[in-house]
Structures are given as structure tokens and as C-alpha cells.
């Protein structure tokens, strides 16, 4: 049986076998399973937005801090009195 596009329990959308989708009671979407060039469509978030890698706020802040050279004020005018 063919693949269908479904919305999974965690909210993501992806391709799944039709039998499995029916048995699991998943919502079948009226969307294609392949891209225009014939390749299989990857899993996406709702409304076909691509999944983004999870980022950690603290890790990103630390990276920005190291790139900026720390929290030191850039000029004497910005320094606290």
C-alpha cells in the first residue's frame, strides 16, 4: 500500500504507510508525499515549515558573549558610573 502524508501525535507531518496511519488513527493530509523533483518529502512542522534544529538559549548566549569579547562595555561612555 502506498505512502500518505500524515500528522503525527507530536504535531510533525511526514510520510507513512497508509495501513499504519489508519491503524494508528492518524490524520491523513491531502498533501503529496514527494517533492516536485520526485524526491521524498522530509518531515516538516505544521503547514510544511521545515524542521529547525533545536538551539539552546544558554549555549547561543555563551557563543555570542565569546564573539563579542564578553560583557565589557565597548567604550568609556557606556561604563557604569
Amino acid at each position: 500500500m502506498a505512502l500518505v502524508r500524515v500528522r503525527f501525535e507530536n504535531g510533525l507531518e511526514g510520510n507513512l504507510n497508509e495501513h499504519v496511519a489508519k491503524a494508528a488513527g492518524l490524520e491523513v493530509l491531502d498533501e503529496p508525499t514527494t517533492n516536485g523533483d520526485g524526491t521524498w518529502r522530509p518531515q516538516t512542522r505544521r503547514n510544511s515549515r521545515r524542521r529547525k534544529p533545536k538551539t539552546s538559549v544558554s549555549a547561543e548566549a555563551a557563543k555570542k558573549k565569546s564573539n563579542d569579547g564578553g560583557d565589557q562595555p565597548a567604550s568609556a561612555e557606556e561604563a557604569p558610573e
Partner: protein
Amino acid sequence: MSVLFPEATKAQGNISVTVVASIDDTSAPSLATDVNATSSVNVSCFLYDNGSVVNATTNKVTANARLCTTEQFQQFGNTTYEVSDLIYVYDPQASGSADENQAKDLLDEGSDVYIVERNGLDARTSAYAAAQLVNIYHVRLGKQNRTRQGDAEAAEFSITQSAILLEPPVYDVAIAT
């Protein structure tokens, strides 16, 4: 200093593999909505033993020599991930929705699935639970080749399927509630 002699963990019967259709966050797979989702299938008793799921091979290249150097050392190059073929049982005469063909159905060509591998606990009696450590492989599935496993009188009908890794494997992550 005392010499440690750590206990080895028996592998036979203690490898559980579940195919999960979708995982929102591979760093904290949810027990309820990912691992135990209604579309997930525990394929531990479908799969034949074909070694480890993924083999990572990193090239070793020789660093360029400088005018002043008389020794050359190696560097690490690209890493290639290779997923072992999935070989599993199926019933050639059963309908698609039969229990015997659950693995065949879920592992349909073109699906992107997550292979969740739990090692070190009894595959048949120990249920997945929060805080257990698992390895996660996000793969895209290839063609399902109808094959036979074993020789002559031991031969069984099976499916041999290739898969490719879509992102680096995630090792030793704890299952979230």
C-alpha cells in the same frame, strides 16, 4: 592502585529496537508521544541480527609536508556513516495490516523513521520507561527486497532493506516522560 575488572553486559536478548515514525526532539524523546506512539512498532522480534545499526568511518589523511619538516603526521578527514541493511521477517501471504507484517508496513520505502535502540535490558520483558538510555538513528528507507534468510532447510522468507542516515546518530539519550 587496585585493578578494576568491570562486569560485561550480555548482549544476546538484550537489544530492543523500536521504529518510531516521528520524534520531535531527539535529545529528549518522549515516552508517550514518540517511543510509545500508536504508530511505533517494536521490531526487536522481527529483525535478524545484522550487527550494529550504524558504522561510522573517519578517513585518515596525511597532513601536507612543509619545507622544514622531516616527519608527516595524519589528520582526521570526513566521517562516513553507513547503516547496516535491515533484515526482518514478513509473511508473504498475510495482508498488509496483519501483525506479521507490521515491520514491513512501517518500514515502507520513502519513509523517514527513527530507529530507537535500547541496549542492556531484556528485549521481551522490559518495557520502555522514562530515564532509560537509548541510541537514536534518523534514517530514510530504501527498497524492500524479498529475500530468504538462512540456508536450505533453515531458510525463512525475509525482507532485506537498505537505509541511509539523515543526521548524525544520537547516543545515550534519556527517554523523557
